């Protein structure tokens, strides 16, 4: 029997990993857009907040941030519900903590990606839109954003490849992702090497397929 019948469990874990990765990527893109607009904004406060966000996040390991958000967030939510007079404790589930942490971390990296991409759009484009009588918001939506995304693609694909591998650390807070499933199977069968090797190969497949898809997308946008 292949992997003592644990293959379906591993593949299920891979789906969890993929879902977690995609949800985090979505959050990271939203935060990254906000961060990039903040960094390029005229408001000094917005620039300062964005600068502190990217500097702090990039100076601390993801594992520390994950543990801080999981355990610290739990404590904060508990004392908040206590203060509101609620008797039952609210649990932060590992999924939420995982998405929040990974999304929050990669939001900082995506801020830099989007900032560079915004700057790569010729300023004349924006000015033409404004001269045409569009509101700044409409110019952003119809002109700057669509053109910026093309420049952001290489950075986005790089960050996605790092992100999907980073999700392996959520096993430490008990989310049953690919890594956790591998650990469980390794413990039950006492064949850690076979299972960690299988886990590694599944991760390699995820990154290889991602790289292929991004390559195709890039070629399509170039022509």
């Amino acid at each position, binding site marked *: 029997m292949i992997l003592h019948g644990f293959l379906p469990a591993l593949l299920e874990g891979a789906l969890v990993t993929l879902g977690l990765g995609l949800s985090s990527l979505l959050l990271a893109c939203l935060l990254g857009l906000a961060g990039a607009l903040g960094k390029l904004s005229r408001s000094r406060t917005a620039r300062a907040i964005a600068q502190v966000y990217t500097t*702090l996040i*990039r*100076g*601390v*390991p*993801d*594992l*520390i*941030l994950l*543990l*801080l958000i999981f*355990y*610290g967030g*739990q*404590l904060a939510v508990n004392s908040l519900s206590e203060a509101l007079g609620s008797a039952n404790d609210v649990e932060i589930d590992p999924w939420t903590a995982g998405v929040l942490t990974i999304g929050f971390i990669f939001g900082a990296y995506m801020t830099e990606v989007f900032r560079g991409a915004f700057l790569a759009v010729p300023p004349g484009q924006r000015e033409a839109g404004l001269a045409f009588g569009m509101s700044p918001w409409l110019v952003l939506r119809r002109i700057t954003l669509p053109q910026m995304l093309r420049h952001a693609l290489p950075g986005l694909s790089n960050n996605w*490849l790092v992100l999907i*591998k*980073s999700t*392996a*650390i959520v*096993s*430490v807070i008990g989310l049953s992702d690919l*890594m956790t499933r*591998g*650990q469980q199977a*390794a413990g039950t069968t*006492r*064949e*850690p*090497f*076979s299972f*960690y*090797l299988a*886990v*590694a190969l599944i*991760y*390699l497949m995820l*990154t*290889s397929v991602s790289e292929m898809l991004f390559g195709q997308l890039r070629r399509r946008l170039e022509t």
Partner: protein
Amino acid sequence: MNWALIQENLPRYFHGALLTLELLVISLLIGLILAVPLAILRARTGWASRTIWLYTYVFRGTPMLVQLFLIYYGLAQFDAVRESAAWPLFSSAWFCACLSFILNTTAYTTEIFAGAIRALPQGEMEAARAMGMGPLVMLRRIVLPAALRRALPAYSNEAIFMLHGTSLASMVTLMDLTGVARVFNADNYLPFEAFITAAVFYFALTLCLVGLFNRAEARWLKPMLSP
């Protein structure tokens, strides 16, 4: 914030920081030594380059945590390893952490250096050849100095990634900065105190690394780029 308890535990954090630094310096140093010859081979064509590509592809395409577990927990599956003379090494978490960090950073560094070698301006090589330099002299005097300097910005990113990557050592029972913070939290259930203290240490270490690499770039890279 329970400042008294943080202060009481500061010596433990300093010990943890020392282990973090030790893991970082060992893996970066050995990784650097291994990556230079590998990058030279990788930048050419042929079977050696393809073999090295396979190694860097696998190690860059999988999480470092899996690599660490594969070495530390995985190798114990084989009786041949457990009965061999090397078992004292492979049963030590410290050794396995170093080994997996070295293998991982070597893969990334090799690709960074190989990319820099491939991107060297052809004119520099032609000039060296025209001067009558042999391949080895050219490598030592032209290719390596120029490529390693140009690789500095990308390499400094890799070094910072490795600093943060060493936090995985806590997953195999080592008491590095993260390990100390996790024990502090488990003993006192003070997550903010435990992890923010560790974060401050990591942040300070990151700033030191950034400063160090900025100075290295100012000394070796800037003079080469300015006309």
